[in-house]
C-alpha cells in the first residue's frame, strides 16, 4: 500500500549556504502546490460576496468610469485622439495587474507565515502564487477591455500579436519586484505599509491615466527611466491601433525586468533560509 519512492540521493541538510541559485527543478516538482495556492487565492477572494466574480469586472469598470468623467471630461486629459475610456482602460488593465502583483506578492510571505513555519516547500512558490492568482482577474479584464473597444469601435492592429510578450514582461516585472519586497517584508514589516504607497506614486509616474506624450520632449528620457513606462506604452501599442512601437522603452523595460528578476531571485534565495525563524 505504501508508495515507496526510493530516493537514491539523500536529502542533505546543512547550515545556511549563503549565495546560491534558485533550484528551479524543485519549484517544478512542487507545481501542484503552486496550483493549489493560486486556486485558494482565487477561490477565497470572492467567497461570501453576493455577486462574486462580477467584482472583477465591476472594480476596473468603476475606476474607468470615474477616471473618464474626471480626467476625460473635466480635465480634458489628452488621450491620443482615442475615446478616453478606451485609452484609460488600456492603461489600467496592465497597471492593475502589475500593482496587484506588487501588493499581493510583497505581502505573500508574511500572509502565509503559518505555512512557512510548519511545512517545507520552495518558498518562491508563495510570491509566485500571489502573482499568478492575479492572472485570472487579468483575463476577465482583458475581455472587458475587448468589449469596451468593440463598443467604441476601436479595432486593434497587427501589433496585438505582441500582447503575450508584453504581458510576460509585466509578469516578470511584478515577480521581480515582489521577490525583493516579499523577502524584505519578512525582516522589515515597514515594507507592508510602504508598498501600497509606492504602488500609488508609481502609477502617477507612469502613463496610466494620461498619455506619455504629455511629458515634454526634453524630459522624456528621465521619464523613460521608469521601467513601467515601456510596459504600459507597449500594452497600448499592442491593443490600440495606429501607434508607433515604443521599441527603445520596451527594450529598456525588458532589461530592467531581467535584472530585477535575477537579482530578486538571488536575494530571495539568500534570505529564504531564515524565513521560518524570522517571520
Amino acid at each position, binding site marked *: 500500500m505504501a508508495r515507496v519512492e526510493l530516493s*537514491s540521493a539523500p536529502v542533505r541538510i546543512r547550515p545556511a549556504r549563503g549565495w546560491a541559485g534558485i533550484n528551479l527543478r524543485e519549484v517544478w516538482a512542487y507545481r501542484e502546490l503552486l496550483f493549489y495556492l493560486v486556486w485558494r487565492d482565487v477561490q477565497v477572494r470572492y467567497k461570501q460576496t453576493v455577486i462574486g466574480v462580477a467584482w472583477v469586472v465591476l472594480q476596473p469598470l468603476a475606476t474607468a468610469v470615474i477616471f473618464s468623467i474626471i480626467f476625460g471630461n473635466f480635465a480634458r486629459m489628452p488621450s491620443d485622439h482615442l475615446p478616453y475610456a478606451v485609452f484609460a482602460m488600456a492603461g489600467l488593465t496592465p497597471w492593475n495587474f502589475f500593482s496587484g502583483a506588487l501588493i499581493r506578492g510583497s505581502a505573500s510571505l508574511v500572509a502565509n507565515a503559518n505555512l512557512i513555519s510548519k511545512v517545507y516547500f520552495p518558498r518562491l512558490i508563495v510570491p509566485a502564487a500571489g502573482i499568478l492568482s492575479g492572472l485570472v482577474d487579468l483575463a476577465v479584464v482583458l475581455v472587458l477591455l475587448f468589449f469596451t473597444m468593440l463598443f467604441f469601435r476601436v479595432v486593434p492592429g497587427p501589433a496585438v500579436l505582441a500582447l503575450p510578450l508584453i504581458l510576460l514582461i509585466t509578469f516578470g516585472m511584478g515577480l521581480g519586484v515582489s521577490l525583493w519586497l516579499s523577502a524584505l517584508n519578512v525582516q522589515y514589516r515597514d515594507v507592508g505599509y510602504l508598498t501600497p504607497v509606492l504602488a500609488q506614486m508609481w502609477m502617477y509616474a507612469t502613463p496610466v491615466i494620461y498619455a506619455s506624450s504629455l511629458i515634454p520632449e526634453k524630459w522624456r528620457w528621465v521619464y523613460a527611466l521608469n521601467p513601467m513606462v515601456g510596459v504600459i506604452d507597449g500594452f497600448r501599442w499592442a491593443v490600440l491601433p495606429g501607434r508607433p512601437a515604443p521599441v527603445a522603452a520596451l527594450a529598456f523595460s525588458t532589461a530592467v525586468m531581467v535584472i530585477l528578476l535575477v537579482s530578486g531571485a538571488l536575494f530571495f534565495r539568500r534570505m529564504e533560509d531564515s524565513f521560518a525563524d524570522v517571520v
Partner: protein
Amino acid sequence: MSDIAIHIEHLGKQYRIGKRETHRSLREALSDALAAPARAFSAAARHSPPGSADSIWALDDITFDVKGGEVVGIIGRNGSGKSTLLKILSRITLPTRGLADIYGRVGSLLEVGTGFHPELTGRENLYLNGAILGMKKAEIDRRFDEIVAFSEVEKFLDTPVKHYSSGMYMRLAFSVAAHLEPEILVVDEVLAVGDAAFQKKCLGKMGDVAKTGRTVLFVSHNMGAIAELCQRAILLDHGRIVEMGEVNGVVRAYLSSVAEKAESAAIAPPEVDKGVTLQRVAVYDDEMHNRSELDYRYPFRLRLDFNVTKPISQLSPWLSLTNQYGVVVFTTWIDYQQPYEPGHYTAVGVIPGQLLTPGSYYVSVGAEHYRVEAYHYAPQCLSFDIINTDPSFDGTLPGWGVIHPKLDWHIQGG
C-alpha cells in the same frame, strides 16, 4: 544503500534570545547600513554571529542515527529542543552547524490543518491541505473516500470549515495528515487533538503506520503513547541528548527528571493567558501534612490551586496520575463544565488508601473547556511515591498491576 534512514552529526541550532528572531525596524537597519553597509547587509541575512551573548543554542551537538523502519520517540520538557530538531529534519529551518542526511521521502506533521482556510469547504481544504503536506492530486483522489470516512465529517464536506465545530475541524485535519505515505514520517505532538475516542483512533493509525515498516520520529508528552509506539527513545534537555536507548528506560529517566519529588510544585504560567492559570499542585497525607511519600494503607489528598481572571462559561479542570512506566493510571474531572467567575480557587480531592500499587507517580493537571479549548496544561508537574507499608504486599509495580485495590470479598464455605 545502507539501512540508515536518518543520520545526524553534531547538529546545532542557535537562536537569538526570545527564541524567535524579531523583525527589526527599518530605521534601525538603515542606520546600521549607513554605518557599515556590508556588515549590516550580511548580518540581516545571517543573524547574530555564533557565540554572541544574546543567543542560545536550542539544539547543541546532537548526534544519532535512525535505522530504516525504526520508530523513535523524542521526549523532553518544553523548550528542550524537540520541536527545533523536527523543524530542521523537516527542512523548515536550517541548522547553524552540523549536518543531517535523510534517506527517503520525508513527510512531516508539525501541526494538523496547516493552510486550512476557513472560507473553503471541507472538500476544498482536504485537497489544499493534502497538497501542502506533499501529496499529489492523484494520490488524494485515490484515497479521498478513505480520508473522509476516517474523519467522520461526510455530511459537512461541502460546508465551509468556519462552520465546523473545533472537533470536526481537527478530525478532518488529522485525517488528511494520517493518510500521508512518506518513507520517513516526522510527527510533532499532533495526536493530542479531538476527543478521547478520536485520539485513540489516531494513536491506532499511528501504530499501523509504524507497523508498515516506515521510519517514524515521534514527539509527544504522552509517555504512554511513546512507550507503546516506539522501540527507542531520545531524551533531550536544554538542546542536548541526555539519554538515548530502549524506550522504557528513557521514559523513566524523563519522568524522574521532570518532576522533582516534592510535596508541592508551582506550575509555570501558560504561554498564552486564556483566563485560567493553574498555579500549584500539592500532596497531603491523611492528616493534612504536606508529604511526598505516602503510606499505601491510608488515603491521601491532592490539592490544585488555580486562578480565573475572566468569567469562563464552561470550565473543566482535571487531574491525572501517571505511573513510573508512563501508564496513565486514571484521569479525573475535578469539576465538569461549570461556570467560573474570576477569583482564586482551591480544589482538594481524596485518593482512597489501599488503591495505588506502591511506586512513583506523576501528577498532570489541566483546565479546559472540554473538547473546545485548553486553557492551561501542566504535564507531569509533581511526583510522589506510594510507600509499601503493608506486610502482606511485597510486589513491585509491573508484576502487581497498575492498582492494587483493597476490595470487599465475601467468602463462604469451610
